């Protein structure tokens, strides 16, 4: 086992833990913006996991998936923010 494999294994454990912590905040988060922030963090970590996966398996096509997921995550967050703001207006 070389150095990069060990680093990738350790990093995937850390990213899995990060998803779990963000998910706990998604379940608990007292207000709706808290949940949106936690969801945004989960998609960011998913982009990181895809970069890690394409590093581990040499399947660089997953990098394209990471680009698309980052775009979808941004659009989703902006849509949620617009919705929350419009809902608070009335």
């Amino acid at each position, binding site marked *: 086992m*070389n*150095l*990069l494999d*060990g*680093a*990738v294994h*350790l*990093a*995937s454990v*850390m*990213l899995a*833990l*990060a*998803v*779990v*912590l*963000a998910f*706990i*905040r998604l379940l608990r988060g007292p*207000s*709706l*913006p*808290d949940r*949106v*922030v*936690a969801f*945004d*963090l989960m998609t*960011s*970590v998913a*982009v*990181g996991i895809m*970069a*890690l996966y*394409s*590093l581990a398996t040499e399947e*660089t096509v997953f*990098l*394209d998936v*990471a*680009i698309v997921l*980052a*775009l979808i995550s*941004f659009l989703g*967050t*902006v849509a*949620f*923010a*617009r919705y*929350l*703001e419009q*809902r*608070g*207006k009335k």
Partner: protein
Amino acid sequence: MEVILTEWIPALLVLMGASFMLLAAIGVMRLPDVWMRMHASTKSATFGIGCMALALAASHLHDLGVVMRSIIVIGFVFQTAPVAAHMIGRAAYLMGVTPWRGTMRDELEGRYDPDTHNLASGNEH
């Protein structure tokens, strides 16, 4: 030299990126109000994605397509994350989410028009 470039630097960058993302998740878990959580998640997670993409680029230096796509990921995330965070923060403020009780002062208080959501600068006269 080759080993340093294709193993040590990517391993270091991967571990750095994963640590920052874990730090972001711990911040989102433990910080007391939505703006603090948002600052933890936005800044650290963006930097973590940057490190991960740089690690991928460093381990595939012979493949220009992978390097360019990594740079695109970095550029895209670094441009969109602050915009998304600003929009959520603004929406949370306008919704009336209560700040942490230790907050010293609220500089936006009374500056937002409750009907139009326009922000006044305070220097209108």
